[in-house]
């Protein structure tokens, strides 16, 4: 496991991290069994002490009065799209990582389906350089599994690993060929990095722009059936078992997929997986509006699928929540549903949406949500953030009582294609600390205005 601080970001430049005392917050870390009002002292990038409230003192430290607020281990997103290189009109390293920081994330992993795709060591080096100058939080870069995402030839995986790629993924596209998939899993023995998979049988999903079911039947829109996802997961689980490899399955959407992975895990196969906030909160009923903000791949599925995902998040079959933050320009979304680009942004709303829609109604415990929001770190090779003495300081400070409207004050992301825009949300990220440094302060909080009520 590598520390999150091993990822590149601009926080590693310049002066050493100043000391920080976060005073009087409700400190919650389910992995540590911690849920108490305490002070948290951060020094030299680490959590130096977690003394009783009001007793934390360090000379020259910035003291943050956090009474009435909640302090969590920061979130980690193993699946975002920063659109660099090539589509900086949608997002770039700076805007995407700022969105992450604003969402309470201390680390993100960027997908490689850029234009052109990240498939050479030089591409990875250039991105890492860019992250050291621009990234607001530690940012890692995936490389593609196949050259140009063509699905035919493997990339120079060991060269890419040497250059600092954090893993491999052709996300956006499945790896169509079972033979190529098998070779990649064999080669994993050499590179020892995660392989993250977008699972979709393109033969079964061809032409589909939403979930195939009652709503697609009513709308006359061609659907992608749930099995287009689960049959590909079954194939890759079988290959992973055969090759004793490990795979990370991205953005689970269907009941069948959950049950396939549940069985594989019970059998001891090394498979981890993620679900997105939109698949946990929305269903294909939203598509009845034909609003292209609800178009993504995999598509929003039926209520039974959503319930299966929630159960799997609760049980741990789903290891983590990943946003699949996918920025698009407005003109790619201001078209009829079937023609619209697939994908939605998610970094800035993930916590608040899940807290509002799942935790407050009692569907999911806050402890489970917190574990899943950084549960993607370990499967992808990084130490999960913790609130413990000596741990790297990756912290998110929230006002759980704050109410805000998503998007009302604009976005840090360059794109506006949020499927939650306009929703009233509870719980707001006020400050993010990544690798011991303040990566984000919410504006009114930074100005010392009481955020609850003022929001």
């Amino acid at each position, binding site marked *: 496991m590598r520390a999150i601080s091993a990822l590149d970001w601009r926080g590693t430049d310049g002066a050493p991290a100043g000391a920080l005392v976060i005073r009087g917050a409700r400190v919650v870390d389910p992995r540590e069994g911690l849920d108490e009002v305490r002070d948290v002292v951060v020094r030299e990038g680490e959590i130096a002490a977690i003394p009783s409230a009001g007793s934390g003192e360090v000379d020259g430290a910035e003291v943050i009065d956090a009474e009435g607020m909640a302090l969590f281990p920061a979130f980690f997103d193993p699946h975002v799209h920063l659109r660099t290189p090539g589509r900086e009109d949608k997002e770039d390293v700076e805007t995407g990582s700022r969105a992450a920081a604003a969402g309470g994330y201390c680390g993100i992993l960027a997908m490689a389906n850029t234009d052109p795709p990240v498939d050479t060591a030089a591409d990875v080096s250039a991105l890492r350089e860019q992250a050291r100058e621009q990234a607001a939080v530690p940012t890692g870069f995936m490389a593609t599994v196949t050259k140009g995402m063509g699905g035919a030839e493997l990339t120079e995986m060991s060269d890419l690993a040497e250059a600092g790629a954090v893993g491999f993924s052709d996300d956006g596209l499945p790896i169509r060929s079972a033979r190529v998939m098998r070779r990649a899993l064999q080669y994993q023995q050499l590179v020892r990095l995660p392989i993250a998979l977008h699972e979709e049988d393109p033969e079964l999903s061809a032409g589909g722009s939403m979930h*195939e*079911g*009652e*709503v*697609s*039947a*009513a*709308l*006359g*829109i*061609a*659907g992608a*059936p749930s099995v287009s996802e689960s049959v590909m997961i079954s194939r890759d689980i079988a290959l992973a078992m055969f090759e004793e490899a490990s795979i990370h399955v991205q953005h689970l959407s269907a009941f069948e997929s959950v049950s396939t992975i549940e069985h594989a895990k019970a059998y001891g196969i090394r498979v981890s997986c993620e679900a997105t906030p939109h698949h946990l909160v929305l269903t294909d009923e939203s598509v009845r509006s*034909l609003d292209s903000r609800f178009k993504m791949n995999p598509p929003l599925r039926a209520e039974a699928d959503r319930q299966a995902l929630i159960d799997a998040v609760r049980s741990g079959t789903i290891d983590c929540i990943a946003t699949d933050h996918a920025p698009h320009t407005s*003109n790619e979304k*201001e*078209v*009829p*549903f*079937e*023609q619209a680009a697939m994908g939605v942004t998610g970094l800035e709303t993930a916590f608040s949406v899940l807290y509002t829609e799942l935790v407050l109604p009692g569907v999911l415990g806050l402890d489970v949500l917190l574990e899943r929001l950084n549960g993607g770190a370990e499967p992808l090779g990084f130490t999960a953030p913790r609130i413990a003495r000596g741990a790297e300081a990756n912290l998110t400070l929230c006002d759980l009582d704050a109410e805000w409207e998503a998007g009302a004050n604009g976005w840090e992301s360059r794109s506006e294609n949020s499927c939650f825009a306009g929703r009233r949300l509870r719980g707001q990220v006020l400050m993010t600390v990544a690798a011991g440094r303040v990566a984000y302060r919410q504006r009114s909080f930074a100005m010392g205005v009481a955020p609850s009520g003022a929001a």
Partner: protein
Amino acid sequence: MRHLLSIEDLERADIDRIMERAASFAEVGRRDIKKVPTLRGRTVVSLFYESSTRTSSSFELAAKRLSADVVSVKSSGSSVDKGESLKDTIATLSAYAPEAIIIRHPHAGAAKLVSGWTDAAVINAGDGKHEHPSQALLDTYTLLDRLGAGEGKPRTDLEGKRIWIVGDVLHSRVARSCALCFRKMGAEVTVCGPPTLIPRGVADALDVQVSYSLDDLAEADVVYALRMQRERMTDTFVPSIREYAVNYQINSRRLGPRQLLMHPGPVNRGIELSPEVIDGPASLITAQVESGLVVRMAILYELLAGGEPRGSADAELPAPTPIGEPA
């Protein structure tokens, strides 16, 4: 009603008003001078992104019978060919301040999207495989007219009637709009076709029965055959057109003497319908085309010249006055 985007959106009362209005236009159509001045000086834009003969000509003629100025834009040969976005095209056409935009588009939801970009009333003349509401309304009108209520009175509902919609339901916007409209009028609807061309979940989606064979076709009062598109064969939806015709063709052997036959056109003779039933006494196919004109006049009238009673709830709408007669 502000727009006509789908049958799904319509209340039963909206359908009833359009049926009544269409009946009064049918009466006008029997006079020597068929034109009425209702929309004189107003502009109607017809924007077709797909080829169409009957829908576009029928809407155009309907608007002209109401004395509107009609601008027709086809996607080929227009700025759409040059890559202009739908939003920009609508902005351009909206500059003429049209009262209505009639749009056909190859993708679901296009008409609804357009309704958010213009002040004009938007009429969906077919959006992808989603809906084709004016077709369903003209079919409903045709049926009400033909069935009657006895003693020369017009029928106002389809209660107790069984309607079978047969063919490629999956790719048919007509099937969706008709099923919804017939259900709203009280009919029992069965959709029938090969399992590969019946969408998953359609029974709940449209509140209809599903059948994969014509064995029970005798129960139908009305048989509504859909156009079988030959290109579907290449995507292996059916093994061959020949086999499709063997299993699903409506012919004189299958169609009983009391059963009415409908088809949205254009017909593939010898595929979904045998030649003898097309021209047979039970066929409403020509009547459907005739209804198209009066129903589309009624739709334009409803959207542009009033419709819902304004002010007092029981205010009577003025009956259309033909040109040349004292108003």
